[in-house]
């Protein structure tokens, strides 16, 4: 106890107080703000389109974080819920003639309903078995649900963008706004009674239950919230491509979603957002980089032929290294940076409430 308070004093002393100490930190914040808010204005359309995908993946990662991180339920069929959001919004907008915004809300509801149905299964089936049910569900969605005649029967359906957000650049900002809403909701949810209840039932259902946590209600609630997030992301994804087809939601995508969430850092909001953005952008930027003349001349021919794929290969290696060296993912790697940015010292030691360990899944 005494040691702890002593340490806190030391940290308090080391916190930045003077203007000189804050200046570099403010400069760093400005750089971040520039990267997020203004850089897409300077990019060509193709790259702001990729940025939009990064934001969409970040929302998906936040959704998976609710399930895997808070509630401890592994979903390997998240591309299914993602697709439900995409097809629902496209159906509402194109076939029913509603506006994009109605489609967005419908996608959130559609995602929530399909996810809640999986939640009902999760009340009975636990751990890796549930992961397997979600896996089979994803396959079912891809091969059956998304090929229904109402969804264009394999040819897909149009998903127009809303007026005012038609260009790729404007659309990026729309996605960013949704991300802000989702991050805020996630933050408030964790701080609420419900958030604490969901975290408690992950650790131990029996103990949580004996503290009067209603397991059924809160487990379903976690599924509903994750479903709303991923449904919204699906709607944004649909209008980003302006057309949805079943082929966009293959099983590999579900693996990528789980990978980016875990690499981002389970239960670390900033980490999973960065993880989502990273996995959406890394591959293309690496390919661009290799496209530069000097790199082109330096590398052997076969690398240049299939350079689009190099990102995925490198990504897989990075993934394994991250998992072994940093079980807390990108969030853990960035902890000193975040501590510094908020005025603390450049160290991982005293984080304000970030959880140290990864997921304690039990089979």
């Amino acid at each position, binding site marked *: 106890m005494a040691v702890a308070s002593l340490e806190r004093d030391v940290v308090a002393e080391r916190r930045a107080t003077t203007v000189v100490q804050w200046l570099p930190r403010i400069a760093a914040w400005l750089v971040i703000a520039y990267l997020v808010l203004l850089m897409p204005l300077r990019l060509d359309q193709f790259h702001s389109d990729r940025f939009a995908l990064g934001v969409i993946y970040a929302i998906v990662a936040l959704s998976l974080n609710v399930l*895997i991180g808070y509630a401890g339920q*592994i979903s390997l069929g998240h591309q299914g819920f993602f697709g439900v959001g995409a097809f629902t919004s496209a159906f509402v907008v194109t076939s029913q003639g509603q506006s994009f915004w109605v489609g967005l809300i419908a996608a959130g509801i559609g995602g929530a309903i399909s996810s809640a149905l999986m939640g009902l*299964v999760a009340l*009975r*089936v636990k751990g*890796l*078995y549930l*992961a*397997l*049910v979600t*896996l*089979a*569900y994803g*396959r*079912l969605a*891809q*091969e*059956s*649900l998304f*090929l*229904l*005649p109402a969804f264009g*029967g*394999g040819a897909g359906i149009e998903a127009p963008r809303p007026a005012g957000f038609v260009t790729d650049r404007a659309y990026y900002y729309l996605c960013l706004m949704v991300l802000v809403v989702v991050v805020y909701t996630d933050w408030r949810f964790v701080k609420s009674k419900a958030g604490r209840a969901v975290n408690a039932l992950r650790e131990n259902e029996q103990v949580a239950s004996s503290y009067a946590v209603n397991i059924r209600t809160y487990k379903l609630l976690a599924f509903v919230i994750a479903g709303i997030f991923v449904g919204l992301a699906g709607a944004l994804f649909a209008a980003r491509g302006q057309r949805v087809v079943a082929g966009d939601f*293959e*099983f*590999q995508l579900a*693996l*990528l979603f*789980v*990978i980016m969430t*875990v*690499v981002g850092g*389970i239960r670390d909001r900033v980490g999973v957002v960065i993880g989502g953005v990273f996995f959406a952008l890394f591959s293309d930027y690496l390919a661009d980089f290799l496209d530069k003349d000097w790199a082109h001349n330096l590398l052997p021919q*076969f690398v240049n*032929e*299939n350079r689009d*794929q*190099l990102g*995925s*290969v490198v*990504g*897989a*290696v990075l*993934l*394994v290294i991250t*998992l*072994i060296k940093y*079980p807390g993912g990108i969030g853990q790697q960035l902890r000193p940076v975040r501590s510094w940015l908020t005025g603390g010292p450049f160290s991982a030691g005293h984080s304000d409430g970030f959880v140290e*360990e*990864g*997921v*304690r*899944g*039990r*089979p």
Partner: protein
Amino acid sequence: MGSAIVLGLVYGSAYALLGLGIVLIYKGSRVFNFAQAEFGTVAAFTVYLARSNGLPYPIAILLALAAAVLMGLGTERFVVQPLFDAPKVTLLVATAGVALGSIALQLFLGGAKLRAYPPAIRGTAFRPFGVATTWQQVLIVLALVAFAVALAAFFSRTFLGLAVLAVAQEPTAANLSGISVKRVSALVWGLAALLGGAAGVLATALQESGFTPGYVTANFLIFAFVASVIGGITSLPGAVLGGLVLGVAQQVTLTYVGEFEWVKNNLPGSQEIMTFVLLLIVLTFRPNGLLGKEA
């Protein structure tokens, strides 16, 4: 009905071969190995490369199985062992990463084009129920029988097999009685990769049109998982039974439900719906699978 059962047994054998590997690794490491089907795709690629370089078929198959086993041992050494104490989700994600990395590597080195190699033995073997059954189809069923018998003998007749079972049940106690847990883990992954490789080599040649990078993962992995859970994820006989049951159930559904005019027009993917429903039914009424015991 006859043709559905024959085809079902053929595809079921592919699921069962992969499922045996999944069950072995689950017993050994308590993880769902998402790289299992990639052992098969890598083996298929090796056969293709060896055949296009003019090597005879038996040597091509040996090389393919060696490549698969090498990949299995590598995965165990460089991915699974360092994560020995990690949470299960982390380990699951790591094997998924191995699978995606392997697919990406195939695309990177060879592009996305369709490749094909001929079946090991050409021609029609016989015609049960008037269904022309090719030698390749017979071969995959025979391979399943051979591997199942070999595994049964291995686990019931050899000390090494007993050691694997001991480690699966109680790693600490097994370690204390002089069994190297690390070596057993390597053995399990090697064996599983061998099974995956065999499944890949045989199943890929079933399709005349050929295969693309990640073919076995995309077409067989999920069903192999479902099959091993239906049979009981800790039971090797269960994996065989689950694979055959799922294979036959899928083909019967395709023939008798999928062919209705209304279903054809309004409800695609009857095979996937049946798989999902079967999985839910088994998990509801027999949560440990058909032959599984308390995990």
